[in-house]
């Protein structure tokens, strides 16, 4: 059998659950360890033998096209198709019709999956579906298995019949296109992939591969979990300048052009991008990722947080267990709380994060005046302006102004 070398990646979604982080970029372009989520997946798939990718893009497509281009920088071939209206997975698949030549993979772009398991999926008997076991099957489409055969698929329900869920990775033959076409539009006005799969299931043809390294990145706090996972394999690599008197412990990556000033204390695993200035006297704690061109200044403590490029956190700030967008500026003394007094699970906008320690989700280009206090579980939209000495908590839409 011919090896599988083609992969359709679904990257058209806006990712509303990511809220302010997707104001200026599609969900798949949110960085994990300083590279877009989608790049991790493409690299892993490349390692598993995929040579050609078809990216189904839509929301924020320009950002995807500009970053990946024709794929030559990553040593792969990339084509794009546009899914203009979000009419479901099968519709996205349809838009790529005619662009694959043989058996092919199809994967959601917003997940983490290792290359070994991608290769294992490629070697399955076609058609195949990847599944994963979870503690929270009620949040996903559930798959009922009999051995390695799929015997049923169920929509999201409060009372799931299995703990195996659809992981959003498939191995198909081009015949799937005919099946989708034959099914036609459902009464929802969508092409339903489930309907096409149910045909295979009824014929006893759909096999399942159980994944172990899979993780989906749906909510902002999943970004922290993803970093906790991805940073464990980090190897120390210091390209920038480290001044005398700075302490670098463990697996720390420091990009070119970055200066770590004296008196700073950095505990790995931790990654700092290019052209940053850190310190003097900054304290960066484990599982932190800082993007390019950031400034982390004097007497700033950052713990278990993700900070996107171009953000300035220059004086007397504390950031804990938070995700901060790009181009933000924190006034001197502005801090983010990350623990409730009752030690309860932090909620953001009424949704449980599952974490006792969680700070805030902050979008792009947010400006804080001096001495603002951001309470635990806050979500602050892109482009917000926060007056000095403000106390901020709860959910703020993009472009909200907290005035004097």
């Amino acid at each position, binding site marked *: 059998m011919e090896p599988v070398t083609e992969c359709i990646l679904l990257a058209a979604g806006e990712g509303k659950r990511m809220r302010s982080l997707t104001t200026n970029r599609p969900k798949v372009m949110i960085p994990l360890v300083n590279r877009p989520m989608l790049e991790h997946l493409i690299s892993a798939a490349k390692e598993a033998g995929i040579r050609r990718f078809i990216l189904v893009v839509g929301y924020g*497509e*320009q950002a995807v096209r500009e970053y990946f281009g024709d794929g030559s920088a990553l040593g792969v071939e990339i*084509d*794009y*198709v*546009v899914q*203009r209206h979000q009419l479901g997975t099968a519709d996205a698949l349809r838009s790529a019709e*005619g*662009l694959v030549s043989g058996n092919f993979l199809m994967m959601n772009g917003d997940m983490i999956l290792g290359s070994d398991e991608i290769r294992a999926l490629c070697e399955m008997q076609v058609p195949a579906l990847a599944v994963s076991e979870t503690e929270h099957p009620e949040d996903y489409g559930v798959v009922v298995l009999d051995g390695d055969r799929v015997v049923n698929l169920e929509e999201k329900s409060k009372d799931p019949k299995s703990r195996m869920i659809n992981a959003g990775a498939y191995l198909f033959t081009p015949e799937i296109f005919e099946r989708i076409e034959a099914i036609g539009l459902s009464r929802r006005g969508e092409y339903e992939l489930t309907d096409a799969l149910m045909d295979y299931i009824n014929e006893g043809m759909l096999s399942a591969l159980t994944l172990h390294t899979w993780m989906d990145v749906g909510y902002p706090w999943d970004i922290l979990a993803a970093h906790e996972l991805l940073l464990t394999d980090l190897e120390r690599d210091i390209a920038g300048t480290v001044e005398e008197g700075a302490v670098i412990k463990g697996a720390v990556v420091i990009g070119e052009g970055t200066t770590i000033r004296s008196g700073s204390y950095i505990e790995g695993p931790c990654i700092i991008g290019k052209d940053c200035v850190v310190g003097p006297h900054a304290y960066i704690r484990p599982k932190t990722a800082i993007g390019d061109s950031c400034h982390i200044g004097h007497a700033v403590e950052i713990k278990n947080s993700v900070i996107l490029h171009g953000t300035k956190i220059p004086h007397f700030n504390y950031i804990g267990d938070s995700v901060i967008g790009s181009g933000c500026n924190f006034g001197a003394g502005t801090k983010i709380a990350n623990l409730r007094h009752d030690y309860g699970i932090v909620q953001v906008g009424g949704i449980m994060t599952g974490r006792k320690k969680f700070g805030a989700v902050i979008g792009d280009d947010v400006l804080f005046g001096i001495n603002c206090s951001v309470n635990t579980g806050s979500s602050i939209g892109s482009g917000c302006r926060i007056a000095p000495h403000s106390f901020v908590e709860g959910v703020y839409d993009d472009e909200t102004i907290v005035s004097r």
Partner: protein
Amino acid sequence: MCGIFGYIGRRKAAGIVIGGLKRLEYRGYDSFGIATKNDTLHISKKSGRISDGGSGTAGLPGTIGIGHTRWATHGIPNDLNAHPHLDCTGKIAVVHNGIIENYAELRRNLTARGHTFSSDTDTEVIAHLVEEQYAGDLAAAVRAALPLLEGSYAILVAAEGDDRIVAARMASPLVIGVGDREFFCASDVTPLIDHTRRVIYLEDGDCAVLSPSEYTITHDDRTVLRPVEEVDWDIQDARKGGFAHYMEKEIFEQPQVFYNTVQSVREAPDTLTHLLMSRTGILIVACGSSYHAGLLCKYLIETYCGIPVRVEMGSEFKYYTPPLHDPVIGITQSGETADTLTALKMAKAWGCPTIAITNVVGSSVTRIADATIYTRAGPEISVAATKSFMAQLAAVLQIAGSLSDDCTLEEELDRVNIMIEDALTIPIDDAVVLCTQAQSIFFIGRGLYYPVALEGALKMKEISYIHAEGYAAGELKHGPFALLSPDTPVVALAMPGKTYPVMISNIKEIKARGAPVIGIGTVGDRELPEIADIFIPLSPLHEVAGIAMVSVILQRLAYHVADALGCDIDKPRNLAKSVTVE
């Protein structure tokens, strides 16, 4: 005035072209046709609407296609005159939007040289000219043929034996959509948005050659680079919902449209007001309903700001107007109205500052004018302008408000939307019954209500096909009085203000000639209900709300009369939404 659409790429073209033409149907719906190409050309054309008969042609094979939806200019609307048009060999297909002014001469010469014509259209000459120039290279043939054409055109040409589409424009709109291993061409951006955000606006004199993998644009035989622009708007959902017609839906959207437009014009940069304020006069050019909005603008700016304003019809402007220096404002809903565009280009050539008021982002007028004010009406599907007129009204009111020293006008504008809400629910059943039986209807008003009367009459005639005339009330006795009879209802706009007493005496004169009167006035008016046969009372809080309310009542009157008469309200006969020929 027609719509054209082309596709070249990796997918089946027919369905994509049909889908594109449906989005362009507002530009004309007399007939439609498409040509697709695999090894040979496949042609399908029909009189009538694409939304009615389009699905039948979607099965044509090939990954190259061009299509056309027609508003007849030369030759009656029938199957024969529908585009695409072919040359003698049947191997070259052309779709065209515009008018070839020297077509009669070209046709004579071509016939003399032995060409056989199968239609009455001006377009067919293009196919034959390309045929004469064809020597194996379609692009070269089209480029050689173009200089022979006088007039306006946006054309797409496809030919057997050539895997390309050649597109060219002169004074008619044409946009290229850049896809992934595929390209699209269309008369405007709307049908492209379904497929891509990246577009190239062609300029007059450009000729583009498209293949599935690349495109080149030439101008005067030199290759030029035109920027690929990112369109950042969505096709707003133009669903009719449960409304019987788009016109009814659009009438009911007006409160929000008015509010949105006022807010957005208010946020427009101050430079615009400075530009207008520092001048000794302003000239407005517009056509149709936009012309009526222009007349209102004249009254408002002259009254509130003391700046003299002239209003010209776009189609007449170029024949009479001497060179000017004052700012020129062009009002066009679509941004593609050919006469208004020509007028603005002339004004620009004289060195006048030019300002566009339009509803369509990225339309041609926005590329001509120095500054653009957008109305926020959203897509208007019905051919009869309702919410776009209301948005223009809101825009000119807000402009007058910001030019004026008196800030009460601006404050009043904030409450107009709720007054429009009222006008949507005031019963007008009796007036509808009366008008339905009429052969001819007069609409009269004075001052600010004169343009409102003109607009009311325009709405009535364009959708109900009842003869209707708008008159300044005082002018009626200079002639039209002779036409008054019990069969000619008169809709009299007698709102409070300094014109009210004379309006009342005009109405009495009309009553004396036996014509039934529908009086539109205010709640609490004692006199009007006594003399008018039907009285429609409104309760505007102030004068500007009155204009908006009366406009809505007249739109509803036209709508319900047309509905009662069983007319095709959204697509009245012989009309098209935007007039892109002069």
